[in-house]
């Protein structure tokens, strides 16, 4: 993690720039190596598409996602014999346009992903750094608590949390954040521990940097790469967890369109109307695969060892 890229803030860069060598900027270098990964690039394009669909859903979606077109229940997709082009992916059991619901559902799922990642990332980093800097009593206590949380099956823990807090979107996000907390704490602690013994940290310490400065300005930037990758992967697992909770009836409440909830209510129609269950299923699948590919691409691009291999 001690590449010149990462420690750019140590005032080496300007001197370099002054020399006749032209190094690519850190961002450009990262971008070049990310782009070389075809899967990751395709995933990025797909995710950009999804983000646009989510952000502009109210204007892009052909119908209101909760409007019930009661004369056309379970209409099959447009390309089939009975389909209509105004309902591209067909309608569900209440005559709601599936495409519009998926687009609005993307907003819900992305919000869940983003909020629950942030909610677990921030306390995760702080706890991880604290346990790395105070490895004796405080660190041990934090790590044992995390071990206990990891010993419980994550979905079960999430269900228990939602059961206590009551079903709903906010509580779903809190539950997912709590469940994914241990992985951030462990990851931050592990990389902070390996950084702590390095020369630049000792130098900063000798120069009189305080604990907080050491933690957040010196050590943290060099631990960020694995954490960023974990956050990307956490984003996809948050979407999956939210879908699972929604499927169990504990997540988003009707009529809010959410992918997992859509999947759950479509179960009854597996035999008679395949599209009602297939569309949200495929959407969840593609999103999770895309996010995982992006996470892989990020890891390859940020990790100097893997980068050289590529």
């Amino acid at each position, binding site marked *: 993690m001690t590449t010149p890229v990462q420690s750019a803030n140590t005032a080496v860069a300007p001197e370099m720039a002054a020399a006749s060598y032209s190094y690519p900027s850190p961002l450009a270098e990262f971008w070049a190596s990310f782009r070389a990964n075809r899967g990751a690039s395709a995933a990025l394009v797909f995710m950009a598409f999804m983000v646009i669909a989510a952000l502009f859903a109210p204007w892009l979606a052909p119908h209101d996602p909760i409007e*019930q077109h009661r004369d056309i229940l379970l209409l099959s997709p447009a390309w089939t014999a009975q389909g209509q082009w105004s309902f591209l992916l067909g309608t569900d059991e*209440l005559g709601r346009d599936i495409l519009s619901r998926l687009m609005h559902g993307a907003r819900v799922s992305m919000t869940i992903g983003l909020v629950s990642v942030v909610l677990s990332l921030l306390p995760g980093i702080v706890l991880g750094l604290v346990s790395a800097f105070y490895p004796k009593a405080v660190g041990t206590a934090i790590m044992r608590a995390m071990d206990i949380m990891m010993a419980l099956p994550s979905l079960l823990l999430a269900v228990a949390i939602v059961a206590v807090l009551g079903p709903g979107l906010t509580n779903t996000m809190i539950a997912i954040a709590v469940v994914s907390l241990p992985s951030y704490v462990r990851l931050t602690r592990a990389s902070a521990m390996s950084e702590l013994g390095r020369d630049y940290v000792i130098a900063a310490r000798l120069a009189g940097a305080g604990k907080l400065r050491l933690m957040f300005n010196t050590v943290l930037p060099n631990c960020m790469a694995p954490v960023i990758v974990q956050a990307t992967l956490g984003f996809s697992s948050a979407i999956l967890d939210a879908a699972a909770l929604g499927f169990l009836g504990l997540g988003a409440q*009707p009529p809010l369109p959410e992918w997992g909830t859509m999947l759950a209510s479509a179960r009854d*129609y597996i*035999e*008679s109307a395949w599209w009602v269950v297939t569309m949200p299923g495929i959407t969840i699948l593609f999103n999770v695969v895309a996010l995982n590919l992006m996470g892989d691409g990020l890891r390859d691009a940020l990790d100097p060892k893997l980068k050289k291999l590529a």
Partner: protein
Amino acid sequence: MQLKKRFFAVAVACAVTAVPALAASKTLIYCSEGSPAGFDPARYTAGTDFDASAETVFNRLVEFERGSTQVRPGLAEKWETSTDNLTWTFFLRKGVKFHTTEYFKPTRTFNADDVVFTFQRFINKDLPFNKAAPTEFPYASDMEMDTNIASIEKKDDSTVVFKLKKVDAAFVQNLAMSFASIHSAEYADKLLKEGKANQLNTQPIGTGPFIFKSYQKDASIRYDGNKEYWKKGDVLLDKLIFAITTDASVRTQKLQKGECHLMPFPRPADIAGMKADPKLAVMSQAGFNLGYLAYNVKHKPMDQLEVRQALDLAINKKAIIDAVYQGAGQAATNPMPPTQWSYNKTLKDAGFNPEKAKELLKKAGHANGFEITLWAMPVQRPYNPNAKLMAELIQADWAKIGVKAKITTYEWGEYLKRAKAGEPDSVLVGWTGDNGDPDNWLGVNLGCSAVGGGNNYAQWCNKEFDDLIVKARTLTNQQERTRLYEKAQVVFKREVPWTTIAHSTTNVPMRKEVQGFKVSPFGLYSFYGVSIK
């Protein structure tokens, strides 16, 4: 030659032992929907439990005619009542044999002791058998059997006298219900002596058309046809097997593949496909049930009549029947199905009129609407195949008149408990008739005594209505009772404690080989009188 003959004999013996199921062509396999909790019908309230015990192993003093709500003689050949309708005398059938099994060999035929034992269990908490196997009798207490029977006496071996504390017009109907299945007193004594009283619930002995063989939880229940059944011509099967299959889609597939002959509770969405299958027949009957939405009249603002009327007017029942029942239902007007005697045919439904609903809300002082909770059942019931879907439809309908509904649900047991305690503002529930008596609809679900903990989910106690049904309960003349119940329904329709939604059609898909099956209005599945071609 000698050798050849012997070989032949061995081969035949092998064939006979190896394929008894195939050789005995009269085996019916029923893909049942769940595991019964036990085989003592008195302890339970669910159809799943009754199908596995009351409808197979047991008989009752009187029984419901197959496929109807009419009562016919069962183990009692006839009965008579005193002029004050408080003393009932039952004359028992003679020569009825209890089942002979590996675990019990009866030494005598059915007699009055068995009847006395069966009912003593409900009314006498100090009965030695009850102490050895403590349990509740929920259905018997719901029907007030435990409190209303003053005494039950054996006059002679084939005569039993019941004395009641107050007149109960539905007394004989109640005796035909599954919980009143007649046990063998001799078997109970034997179990008591051996200290195994609870075995009554796992290894049942009755007089019924099928003899219990074995039970594996979540897998199967096996019965043999009772060759010595007292009613000739009712046992047409050699073996009856319940293949327990909880998932409705799997049941459908098993039926299509011929792995079972008959199944309960198909998904409405699958029915059209089954009707088109040349190997299957789908039997349909207007259900003896009602799915409804109860408004909690103790919560504001549902205590105002205009608000209830507005909510009722705003619901589009036709859309619900199309989407939720997929056509397999008929819109409900009264708090009982049209096949129930005393159904008031003159009443009309308020209909679907959101404009008028808005006006009524304005009049009631809620022009901007309000927020309420709408409870949706977590399970599929005969009267409501998909409560969540129904709730979403109602939510959308109410949103148009400015009422914001929050859909709430709990695990089924918890749901009923909280709903009975009056927690929800409005709650989706329903009822399937038990005994074909109007009191089973109006009294049990809307009477004042059912408020707060009982089945009166609307918490609705109306003096005028209650007086009518309490009076009707003490009469035995059906015409007079009909008059009172018809009046009570008028009060119900005027006060709108519920929105009556639909009576669902019961669909029973089966293989074409199945002959003589009849759909029970009570949602039970019985296989006497059924054969396989």
